[in-house]
């Protein structure tokens, strides 16, 4: 069975764990960088990206996360997690983990009163996915190797670049586990390839 971690510094950790378990994989809450070692994939959950970043720095997680990415292991960022993955952030000179070739703008749909639910078509997943956007970011620009999976009102809200998957919304808040299942499939494929 593959093991997938959820970065558990802050945010919607429990929901991602539940979603992973519903997809029949082993879910592990990661609070220490040492815990990254025997994982096959990692989810960066929704939460407050500034708060998560501070804790990442404090516990010296950053290099371990970059190594995880360089080892070719799949990573899935939702909302704040998408911000952590992006190579470029609107209004900031430095990215966080900075491994996915996308430019992301924070809080780009407005404040909490503008947060919304919408049905999305997600390429390779479903024609109708219940997406919950909360003070959500969006992908302003995507590199040439990035595959755009979903758009909402002409804005890119889900994308994949090889081992990296990111979305603006919160699949973990609904009972629809299809996007998580898509990620677990990515992890299984990456692991199989690694062993060949």
């Amino acid at each position, binding site marked *: 069975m593959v093991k997938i971690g959820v970065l558990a510094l802050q945010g919607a*950790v429990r929901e991602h764990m539940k979603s992973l378990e519903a997809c029949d994989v082993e879910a592990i809450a990661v609070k220490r960088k040492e815990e990254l070692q025997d994982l096959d994939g990692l989810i960066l959950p929704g939460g407050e990206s500034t708060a998560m970043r*501070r804790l990442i720095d404090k516990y010296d997680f950053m290099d371990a996360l970059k190594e995880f990415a360089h080892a070719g292991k799949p990573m899935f960022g939702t909302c704040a997690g998408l911000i952590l993955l992006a190579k470029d952030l609107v209004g900031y000179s430095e990215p966080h983990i900075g491994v996915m070739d996308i430019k992301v703008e924070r809080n780009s749909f407005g404040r909490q*009163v503008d947060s919304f*639910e*919408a049905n999305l078509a997600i390429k390779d997943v479903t024609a109708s996915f219940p997406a919950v956007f*909360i*003070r959500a970011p969006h992908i302003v620009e995507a590199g040439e190797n990035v595959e755009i999976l979903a758009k909402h009102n002409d804005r890119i809200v889900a994308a994949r670049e090889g081992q990296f998957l990111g979305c603006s919304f919160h699949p973990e808040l609904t009972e629809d586990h299809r996007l998580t299942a898509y990620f677990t499939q990515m992890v299984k494929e990456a692991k199989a390839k690694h062993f060949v």
Partner: protein
Amino acid sequence: MITGTDLVKRGMAEMQKGGVIMDVVNAEQAKIAEEAGAVAVMALERVPSDIRAAGGVARMADPRIVEEVLKAVTIPVMAKARIGHIVEARVLEAMGVDYIDESEVLTPADEEFHLNKKDYTVPFVCGCRDLGEAARRIGEGASMLRTKGEPGTGNIVEAVRHIRKVNAQVRKVVGMHEDELMTEAKLLGAPYELLLEIKRLGRLPVVNFAAGGVATPADAALMMQLGADGVFVGSGIFKSENPAKFARAIVEATTHFQDYKLIAELSKDLGTPMKGIEISSLAPEARMQERGW
């Protein structure tokens, strides 16, 4: 595309889990809080201990302060409205505040009814001391709860009492037979359907933070161990000697609430925490926790 749904409003609170929400009274404090890793700030005119000291009627903050804080940080901004004060709540919603606290820290505007929070697009957090109060607030549309404690005292005893009480009552409901829940609803003064939902989920349907008396990193970790989803810190931070250091220590203790060596390290040389108040020295009418119905 729809806004203001339960999923969107409750989901916002889910994203705050494991974090610390800090009271601030100006842009400078808000920036210190954000820099320290707060998941949100509560914009106020005075922190609870100063509200206590000032006496008189405590109202919604001057919109100028709220506006200043909204502009200063990118993390969510909360603000307090008086219990039952429809217009204060609407004003804060119109200003784009991310969450409203219908709070007993301010002087209640209505001694009988709370706001009908379902009517609003903005989500609400409300205080509770037991499951009956928690369930009534959720029934009115609160998307997040916080146990009340006794605000502005720097004394954790009431916060402990309330989080233990709520969680013990949740466990009781979860363990009860469905046949028994209607009578339990009557005894608690809680909506029956909510008790059914709590039994089905095995927990409250919304996030529950702890508040009211958290004054040290160890206090924050204690609340997490007793089952809080996160912590509100009011007077504790900006009434301490070194707010930036204090704020960082509280954030870390909340994340790693079972790492006692770490808590020992980060509790060193923090300077004097706020001066506390022994609860029995507070006259009953001075206890903010009694406000709310």
